[in-house]
């Protein structure tokens, strides 16, 4: 198990290094410079700015500096906000993103589990049909459309929640719902498929033959067996949340990473783009690692074979 973990962590570091390198060289290929946004500068001004960003040094030197700094959590200075460190920029914005991201994930997954299992237990009834329609809608309606509709109808028209902005739990509700749609749909469909499979298995038939009630069968046997594999989709769900947050934060004017990322993309703020890229990738790697470990812990079959390694 320890060996396995060590190997996984090694791969994680390798992956991050590769991503950092690729990002760096991609950015170097790109046409924009910090000067794009400040026209008409004198030659000496340009020189000062180049020095400030270390752009006057040879490429390999810039690369080494970049990697060394990145390891220390220093991603350079933002082009857009010329005196703000990228790490500071990210740090100041990570809070709101983390809050609505986590809330959206939890809400989506829990609702998804409920609908998915209900739909499997009541397979081929109207409950199943309705759940199916809802999850197909959740899968098909892009988050930005859903967010705009939520904002307009629940924020503007019914005035139930703040239309936009950041401050207090109330302001997180609509963005959370908007973000939850995609993990909800994915979870619901996944759990349904798993559960239908499990409900048709021999051990559920045996549980029935034991005289267990419907409730007992679902809670003691079906749920655990169909939820264990759910761990494997947490990674993709996290990606969905990151993607969603880029537009949802924008629509609801939430000062988070996603909103900043889109802004940085539009103004070619490369240091920030690189910083967020690394952040997102690192986060995903971490989620994948953790879900892998968790999977090993909760599934007895893997737990034991893990010991042998």
């Amino acid at each position, binding site marked *: 198990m320890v060996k396995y973990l060590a190997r996984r962590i090694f791969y994680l570091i390798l992956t991050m290094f590769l991503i950092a390198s690729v990002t760096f060289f*991609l950015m170097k290929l790109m046409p924009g410079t910090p000067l794009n946004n400040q026209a008409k500068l004198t030659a000496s001004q340009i020189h000062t700015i180049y020095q400030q960003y270390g752009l006057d040094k040879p490429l390999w030197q810039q690369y080494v500096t970049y990697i060394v700094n990145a390891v220390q959590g220093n991603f350079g200075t933002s082009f857009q906000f010329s005196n703000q460190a990228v790490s500071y920029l990210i740090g100041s914005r990570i809070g709101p993103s983390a809050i609505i991201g986590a809330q959206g994930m939890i809400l989506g997954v829990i609702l998804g589990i409920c609908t998915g299992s209900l739909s499997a237990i009541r397979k081929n009834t109207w409950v199943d049909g309705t759940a199916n329609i809802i999850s197909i809608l959740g899968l098909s309606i892009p988050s930005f459309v859903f967010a*705009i509709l939520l904002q307009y109808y629940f924020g503007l028209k019914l005035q139930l929640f703040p239309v936009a902005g950041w401050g207090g739990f109330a302001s997180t509700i609509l963005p959370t719902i908007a973000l939850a749609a995609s993990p909800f749909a994915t979870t619901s469909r996944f759990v349904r498929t798993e559960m239908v499979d499990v409900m048709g298995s021999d051990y559920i038939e045996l549980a029935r033959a034991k005289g267990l009630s419907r409730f007992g069968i679902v809670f003691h046997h079906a749920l655990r067996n169909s939820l264990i594999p759910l761990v494997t989709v947490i990674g993709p769900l996290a990606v969905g949340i990151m993607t969603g947050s880029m537009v949802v934060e924008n629509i609801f004017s939430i000062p988070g990473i996603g909103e900043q990322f889109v802004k940085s*993309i539009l103004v070619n703020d490369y240091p920030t783009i690189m910083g967020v890229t690394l952040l997102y990738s690192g986060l995903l790697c971490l989620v994948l690692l953790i879900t892998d470990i968790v999977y090993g812990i909760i599934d007895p079959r893997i737990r034991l074979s893990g010991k042998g390694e």
Partner: protein
Amino acid sequence: MDEKIKLPEDAFQPVGKDDKLDDEKIAAPSRTFLQDAWHRLKENKAAFISMWILIIIALFAFTSPITAPNPNSANPDYANLPPKIPGVNINGFNGTSIQGGQRVDQYKANNVPESKHFILGTDYLGRSLGQRILHGTMISLLIGLFATLIDLLIGVGYGIISAWKGGVVDLVMQRIIEIMQSIPNIVIMVLLLLVIKGGILPIILAIAINEWTTMARLTRAQTLQLKSQEYVLAAQTLGESSGKIAMKHLLPNLSSVIIIQTMFTIPAAIFFEAFLSYIGIGIQAPIASLGTLINDGQRNFQFLPFQMWYPAIVLAIIMIAFNILADGLRDAFDPRTSRH
């Protein structure tokens, strides 16, 4: 039980072999696997309807260069006109909208000639929304289809090679996929689009490049399974070349996996196109795609909701239809019903 039964005289004549009942008659005409799947798909009403909806949408979209030739012709005089269908007098389709608390005929107010009408209204530059949606749908579908095609070529090729070569090659190729999959795909797309800016081709590439890994994994798993099957082994020992074996034995067997995955990839690609266009790094003006149309429309959503509703509805219908069709195909190919 022993009641007397009246029986005809010849009742106990033995029956010759020839006139015996033939129970081994084949009850249903035998069908190939694909025909069977097609049959099951047809029985799935939702999937079948979805398929037709997609065909109809595609027909409308791809004939739009003829039927709607001017998606980009702007006319400031006609800006932000509500939908008007001649002869229909239902609010929302009669060219009126509420302005300052009163319903105003916008066509009259803007001196639009009597003969001129826009079925789905116009946008802020006075371009026909109907024509733009047709055009945008075409662009979105094209991007979705081409991205999926590339994704298919890369993914299937990669998967087959990885499984077929095995050993170190497989290991390295799988590691590469693992690394690819631990980068959020949106990040890959954004980075790529920053390097190769604008235009339809870069978007297609960007989308294809992050979608192929799933296809590669599925193909690899399936190939590994097939590889150990006897007829493939036999072909191998008979000295058929790897390429030939792949074409003759693997691809047909992979077809169901590929078809199903393709159906899931197309809507994903359409979604990403819309997403990228929406955040402003996708399709560039004046070309329309469903994503840019929604982005344009949402600015005025409060006052001219139709400008976002229409493209959004078209996008949603396409996505829903593809997803239902994909579900249906999965069930049709795997009657035991779907695992992934």
